[in-house]
């Protein structure tokens, strides 16, 4: 069991950190070159040179291109009109047709920006006539900005995701182990044997907490080492602070797990409830989608999500180097949460029914 507890989450860290990315890459790009001029070929060459686009084929007609998009073979079609080169030289402006598959609206927005940037850098005088499939409207960006990216200068997605995935694996393992634990003892009958001993309720819960707490801290350690070695994630902040916060955070998760365990009769029930909360906690944690863009009521719910605070703290401390006072609000909320959940765990554990 112990190897499983450590190996699976680490696989998760390696796989998810690479896969769970919002970077839009390998955009399947097709074009219809009606001009066939040096200018149009040079423009296509620009796309070819970009690492974001996989330039596929030259489609002879718009109908063929649109059927390829229906089949999902291409994401973007660039249509270069007849006399593109001539218009550009004579009238000092040209128009291009861009069609983007916008079923994934977020990705389509990013693709639009990329395309616009490439075309703009090629010639400031070209306008794109954007046509989007699906109903999501994306306004072309007209403002020239000079971005300055702080804390993650290279916009490396892994730098952003690894601390979050680390949070997930520490949380999942500790929640499931603790959630299954007392209920397992109910099933095999050893809990009854414990209940006829004079053991105190708090002693029992502490005895249950401690081993999982150690496992959780161990997972954090191995996860941090991997984050450093494999992903080269910067660790700007204090390791001690990360461990201190985690040591309290794990108590919250374990408290929830033991509370679930006390209220259920079988491991299936416990697993079901633990999964229910896990999915909500993960999706509402700000790990994959920003909490700021959730509706107001959902944002209120996230206030009760321990994972949210942990993701925030890990990103703050690891990437920004936030100190004790910066994470104090999260720390206080988490501590209160830990006290409440473990209080409930002790309270809900009944030696006498």
């Amino acid at each position, binding site marked *: 069991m112990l190897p499983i507890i450590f190996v699976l989450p680490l696989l998760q860290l390696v796989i998810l950190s690479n896969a769970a990315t919002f970077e839009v890459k390998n955009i399947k790009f097709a074009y219809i070159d009606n001009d066939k001029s040096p200018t149009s070929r040079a423009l296509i060459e620009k796309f070819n040179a970009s690492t974001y686009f996989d330039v596929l084929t030259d489609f002879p007609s718009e109908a063929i291109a649109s059927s390829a998009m229906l089949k999902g073979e291409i994401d973007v079609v660039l249509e270069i009109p007849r006399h593109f080169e001539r218009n550009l030289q004579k009238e000092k402006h040209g128009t291009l047709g861009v069609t983007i598959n916008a079923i994934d609206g977020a990705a389509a927005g990013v693709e639009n920006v990329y395309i616009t940037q490439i075309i703009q850098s090629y010639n400031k005088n070209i306008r794109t006539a954007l046509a989007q499939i699906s109903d999501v409207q994306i306004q072309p960006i007209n403002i020239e900005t000079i971005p300055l990216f702080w804390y993650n200068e290279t916009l490396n997605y892994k730098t952003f995701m690894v601390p979050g995935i680390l949070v997930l694996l520490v949380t999942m393992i500790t929640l499931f182990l603790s959630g299954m634990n007392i209920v397992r003892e109910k099933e*095999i*009958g*050893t809990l*009854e*044997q*414990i*209940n*006829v*001993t*004079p*053991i105190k309720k708090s002693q029992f819960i502490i005895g249950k907490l401690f081993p999982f707490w150690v496992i959780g801290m161990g997972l954090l350690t191995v996860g941090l080492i991997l984050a450093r070695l494999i992903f080269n994630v910067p660790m700007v902040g204090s390791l001690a602070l990360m461990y201190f916060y985690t040591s309290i955070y794990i108590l919250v998760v374990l408290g929830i797990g033991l509370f679930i365990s006390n209220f259920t009769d079988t491991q299936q029930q416990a697993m079901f409830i633990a999964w229910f909360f896990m999915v909500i906690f993960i999706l509402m944690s700000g790990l994959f989608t920003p909490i700021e863009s959730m509706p107001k009521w959902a944002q209120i719910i996230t206030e009760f999500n321990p994972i949210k605070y942990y993701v925030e703290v890990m990103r703050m401390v690891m990437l920004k180097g936030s100190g004790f006072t910066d994470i104090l609000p999260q720390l206080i909320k988490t501590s209160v949460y830990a006290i409440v959940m473990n209080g409930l765990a002790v309270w809900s554990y009944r*030696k*006498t*029914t």
Partner: protein
Amino acid sequence: MNNVIQVEGLTKMFGDFTAVNAITFEVEKGEIFGFLGANGAGKTTAIKMLIGISNPTSGKATVAGFDVLTNPEDIKKNIGYMSQKFALYDDLTVKENITFFGGIYGLSRKKIKEKSEALIKELGLENVASQLVGSLPLGWKQKLSFSVSLIHDPKIVFLDEPTGGVDPITRRQFWEMIYKAANQGTTVFVTTHYMDEAEYCDRVSIMVNGKIEALDTPKKLKEQFQAESMNDVFLKLARG
């Protein structure tokens, strides 16, 4: 006070169903008290109330001088319990189980070490002391489980069908262990389905549908019901 268990009108209801219906009896110190009854007669429910893990619906009971309703934790310091279902940790070794339960009862390290050595020797488990309990045969497990329930020298030990599914030789050894414990002054409260075992008890009660229908020494019960053996007594009562 010579009665270590005193029960008066003890009742347990589950919804409309009365599992234990106003039972009254007492058990003297050092006695081997047989607690008989058919399956579903309410024996286990009654025991659970006496050992403080199930609250009675009504009635009164004191065990080792403490009230089951108000002081169950004090009772637990003074009793040992062996459940129907084997309830030591299968994934701990023999030694670890002994150490663990010794620790829970607050025995000192030195005491635990002495006890576990003596216990392992007595049970003849020297060769398997470091093996996981889950790998032992049932008979050995039951003997181990009984010894562990005595680890803190309790005043009373509750045995719920300790010999269920065990071979006749092991059953015999088991009863020798019970006698030994009783001779050392431990009160033994035992349930069983084997009527030959009932004959070994000092006194026997027979529960039918949640009520105690008979309670006396095996000899007197046989006279009272004009029966040859405890088996006949049981059949007469249980059939109603």
